[in-house]
């Protein structure tokens, strides 16, 4: 189990990155922490990966406290930091083998482990090219390969697919899906689709606080309505008989509602030639709903006021 109890991280007086953050999840499969920039994802992952002290609270993984038992915990974890880069003057082979040697493997064992991961990640042809000459995506793959090739059973990956093209991202997803059979992977991501595809459990963090936690089904249940309509830069819509309205930062409105209401509203929008999109609720919609919260009725303008 991963238990986080009231963890607070204060960088300087009044500047809290985590505010009494608590959660308890099984330490198996993939856990995805999603949140906006600056929500506190990296701070939490760095505390759990024993890289950073916490200001208050406590956290333990499989019974090992991240502060008191850090040395024991470090035996079983590996981490790809958010801004981590494969050292530029080394090749992927030199970098990964050195990392494994840092973990205490002999050169022979380290090399054998690297060769195995090379094929898995499809980066064979770059094995002896200087890291500084590799594309951003390949550099990320090298870092993921680095922790994959280790003996660690708990992997902390801070935005592992950032910068990867869609094909590479899907390749990496396949790899992570295989890895999760015998690893616990704690990852942060901006890609909600990634969390939806990969994660057994998902946490939503906003302003240093846990806003929601559970499986994708649990999160879906947080929103009572199964359909979402996005109306782009236009306020000419009818207030739903059932449902909520959320105002986006970019000016669009989002209506979450029942299937019947979604059909009715969409027909009206077509008649009025208003640009919109309608879809069954995605994790994006749930995230937006949880983080933004529905706006109060008096704060949106409905059809009647516009006509």
């Amino acid at each position, binding site marked *: 189990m991963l238990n986080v109890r009231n963890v607070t991280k204060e960088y300087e007086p009044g500047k809290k990155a985590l505010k009494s953050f608590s959660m308890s999840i099984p330490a198996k499969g993939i856990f995805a922490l999603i949140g906006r920039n600056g929500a506190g994802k990296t701070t939490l992952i760095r505390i759990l990966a024993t890289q950073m002290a916490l200001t208050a609270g406590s956290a333990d993984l499989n019974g090992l406290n991240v502060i008191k038992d850090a040395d024991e915990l470090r035996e*079983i*974890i590996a981490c790809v*930091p958010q801004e981590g*880069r494969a050292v530029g003057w*080394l090749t992927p082979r*030199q970098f990964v083998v050195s990392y494994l040697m*840092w973990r*205490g493997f002999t050169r022979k064992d380290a090399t054998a482990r690297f060769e195995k991961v090379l094929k898995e990640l499809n980066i064979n042809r770059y094995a002896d090219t200087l890291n500084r000459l590799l594309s951003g995506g390949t550099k990320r793959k090298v870092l993921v390969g680095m922790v994959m090739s280790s*003996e660690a059973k708990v992997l902390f990956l801070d935005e592992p697919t950032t910068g990867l093209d869609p094909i590479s991202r899907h390749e990496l997803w396949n790899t992570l899906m295989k890895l999760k059979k015998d690893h616990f992977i704690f990852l942060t991501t901006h890609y909600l689709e990634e969390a939806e595809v990969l994660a057994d459990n998902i946490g939503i963090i906003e302003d240093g606080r846990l806003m929601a936690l559970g499986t994708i089904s649990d999160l879906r249940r947080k929103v009572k309505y199964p359909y979402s309509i996005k109306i782009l830069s236009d306020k000419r819509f009818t207030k739903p008989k059932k449902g909520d309205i959320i105002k986006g930062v970019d000016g669009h409105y989002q209506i979450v509602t029942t299937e019947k209401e979604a059909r009715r509203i969409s027909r009206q929008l077509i008649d009025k030639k208003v640009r919109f999109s309608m879809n069954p609720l995605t994790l994006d919609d749930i995230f937006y709903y949880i983080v933004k919260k529905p706006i109060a009725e008096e704060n949106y303008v409905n059809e009647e006021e516009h006509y």
Partner: protein
Amino acid sequence: MSMKRSIISQLIASIMVNAIYAMVNYPIVLVSTILAPFSLLIVIAFVSHGALTPIAIGGALIMTMVSSGTSMQQDLSHLKNDFKVQDMVVSSPTRAWVYLLGMSLSEIIYSLPALIVLSILAAIYLHTGVLGYITIIAVMLIMFAFASSLGFLLSTLSSDIVQSWAFSGIVSTILSALPPVYYPITYIPQPFQYLAYLSPATYAAQIVQNVTGLTSFNSGAIALDWVVIIAITIITLFIAIKKSKWRED
């Protein structure tokens, strides 16, 4: 059950990353490391018409070790801040002391080409016995321990490379510009000699200059030199162990 880990492998990893691969992948690094200690040595030798060459060689040996230690500050900062290598290593079974020792050794390996050339010059120009050479090596190792402890401490305190450059400039002035390692302290006008004594390298240079017979100090002064360099090394090492931040606050 945790696997058996090889400390030798962990030390070699640091040496490979910070020294060997840099020289193998960029051979120009090798040329630079050989040339580095010779810049001041050549100037002093020419300006003094060769009279100060032996003293300058002794000084170059000390300063190569000091530079090796202080280079650790920039190398560690670079790996920590630009590549986040320290974060990767912290979240692994590598202990702080193993990483530190490995990186220290890597700096000596990095300076090895220069040290070999300087040792050949020392054998030609410095006329001393076995005890003299043992003394020189002991001074070099103490100065390296001092400078690398300082380097490690500063690297953990710096959060980006610009801060690291600033530390480097200050340390370089105190350890390289102030002390009279390439010439006798008597060449420095009297009020400024006190400034020179602010640098541990001054005491180290006096021991080397004395043991090679290039300058003469009384035994009390030399004993004091030993006390100062050993004490300051122990204090710096202690502060580095206590104040260095392996895990960020």
